[in-house]
């Protein structure tokens, strides 16, 4: 067990940080906002934390907090600017924001370390600490999925007019989704950077948008559980399909495409369906038993 843990400690770490990143994209989607600004926030959070540690010799947690807060604030500002846009137009604008963050990092001179990025940001973050942070984030998100709050979020996404009519402040909700996305994205960036000790401009790119989106859609887009499932799948997939060796990427392609075709609600959807069927079967059996007794 402990050897297994030692061998896979980085994968466990990556799963948790990937989950945070995926959540930063998923939160706005759940509010019906097609924003990928979370990836830009990832970059801002990562660079801020690294700069705080390397240039100003801050300690780990203040650096992480600064990264998350700054990323949250900037993402909220971006959200205020682009809130008028809809659908993929919003998507494009927020992707543009992300790419601009990356270009700023390349051209940031000594501050950002240019193309080579920053290295030597030796954060002191243990897996249990990381897990606690993730648990807190997930716990708070769970509140937005429960009962009345969850229904309001669903209304904001599926029928904003109705939501407005029943007194839900749609605009406010959507703005808040930017803030939350930025905070979580910044947190993901800061913790990833300090765990890895480096951050480079090449990491903050369109590819990261694709990775998180794939994780969410394949896992299940309506709940943090789906994001967790997706993160687990895509972080561990290379380990599971190691036997195909050099054809790994081909297998990855087939798996993603098959998931898109056959799992309309992601893996989470399958699990829920299965659970539902299991429970109803149970109930039917019980009902039948009752009927027989009678």
């Amino acid at each position, binding site marked *: 067990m402990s050897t297994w843990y030692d061998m896979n400690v980085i994968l466990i770490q990556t799963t948790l940080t990937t989950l945070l990143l995926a959540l930063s994209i998923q939160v706005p989607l759940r509010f019906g906002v097609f924003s990928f600004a979370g990836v830009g926030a990832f970059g801002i959070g990562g660079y801020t934390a690294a700069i705080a540690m390397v240039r100003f010799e801050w300690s780990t947690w203040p650096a992480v907090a600064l990264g998350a807060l700054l990323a949250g604030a900037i993402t909220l500002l971006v959200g205020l*600017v*682009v809130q*008028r*846009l*809809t659908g*993929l*137009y919003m998507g*494009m*604008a927020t*992707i*543009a*924001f992300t*790419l*601009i963050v*990356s*270009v*700023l990092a*390349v*051209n940031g001179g000594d501050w950002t370390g240019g193309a080579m990025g920053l290295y030597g940001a030796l954060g002191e973050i243990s897996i249990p600490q990381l897990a606690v942070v993730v648990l807190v984030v997930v716990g708070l998100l769970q509140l937005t999925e429960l009962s009345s709050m969850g229904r309001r979020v669903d209304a904001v996404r599926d029928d904003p007019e109705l939501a407005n009519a029943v007194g839900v402040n749609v605009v406010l909700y959507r703005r808040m989704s930017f803030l939350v996305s930025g905070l979580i994205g910044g947190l993901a960036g800061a913790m990833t950077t300090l765990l890895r000790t480096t951050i480079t401009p090449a990491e903050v790119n*369109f590819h990261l948008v*694709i990775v998180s*989106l*794939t994780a969410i*859609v*394949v896992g299940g*887009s309506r709940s943090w559980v789906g994001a967790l499932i997706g993160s687990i799948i895509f972080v561990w997939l290379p380990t599971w399909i190691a036997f195909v060796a*050099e*054809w*790994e*990427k*081909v297998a*990855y*392609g*087939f*798996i*993603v*495409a*098959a*998931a*898109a*075709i056959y799992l*309309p609600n992601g893996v989470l959807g399958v699990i829920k369906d299965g659970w539902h069927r299991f429970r109803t079967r149970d109930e039917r059996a019980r009902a039948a038993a009752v009927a027989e007794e009678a």
Partner: protein
Amino acid sequence: MQDVLNAATLGSIYLLFALGMALVWGTIGILNFAHGATFMFSAFIGHLVTQRVELPMLVIVAIAVAVGAAMSALTQLLAFQPILRRAKSQHAAEMRILIGGIGIAAIPLAIAQRETRSSPFGFQSTYSAEVMEIFGLRITTTGMIIVLCGLGIGIGLTVWLRQSRRGLALRAIGVDPETTAGMGVNRPALAFGTMAVAGGLAGLAGALLTFQLGAIAPETGDQLLIKAFAIIVLGGLGSMAGTVLGAYILAGAESFVLEMNWGTWVDAVSFGLIFLILLVRPQGLLGRKEVRRT
């Protein structure tokens, strides 16, 4: 003037690539993220064939067009069509089509990377580009062909969509697919044909761009994908003329940045421009507004 001509050539390259994507996205609502892989793989097959036998330009282009059309048609048949069939609505299918495309794109990319070890590949052709001087401006024959093809096909598609019966049907599908089927339009067949045409355009772009650049790498398609995405959104989804305009605006902006020798700021300036334009015109330059009285 020479700069304008260079920008026009670059714009035509972007345009050739973006046209196919814009066609399927703006009409049958499929945002095909495998377009870049189709583009690259068509050129790659051309490369493999010309390693055996040296061929004239026209034959290579024909091969690439055929490969592109076949790949794209297969993608439609094996992935997007099943997704659409299973989805409750076009809207529900959108995200899964996106992810399906991402998965499918990984397959040809992995194959080409493996075969070439990611070194650049080109064609063995009897064609060799000549430099022409017209009114003191230099342009290669390949550049000329690209500009003519880009503009010609761009305008041709615009006119065809406006004037022809099938073009009208495609635009109607873009508005309301179900009602269009009620008008006697065989939607799956038309979608299949449109995807094949788009794939052919990707193949054409792949072959011509490889001639123009001398060689491309397996990853070239991915880089163009994000630019094409930006161009289409900038021009306004559903408007072919908008795509033409968007391609030249992006190329013009990039060329200007290079002319100013701010090479590392290219993405920031061009995506910043897109960001700003979207703020002023949220539906893109020539995008349709919601026309509705009630």
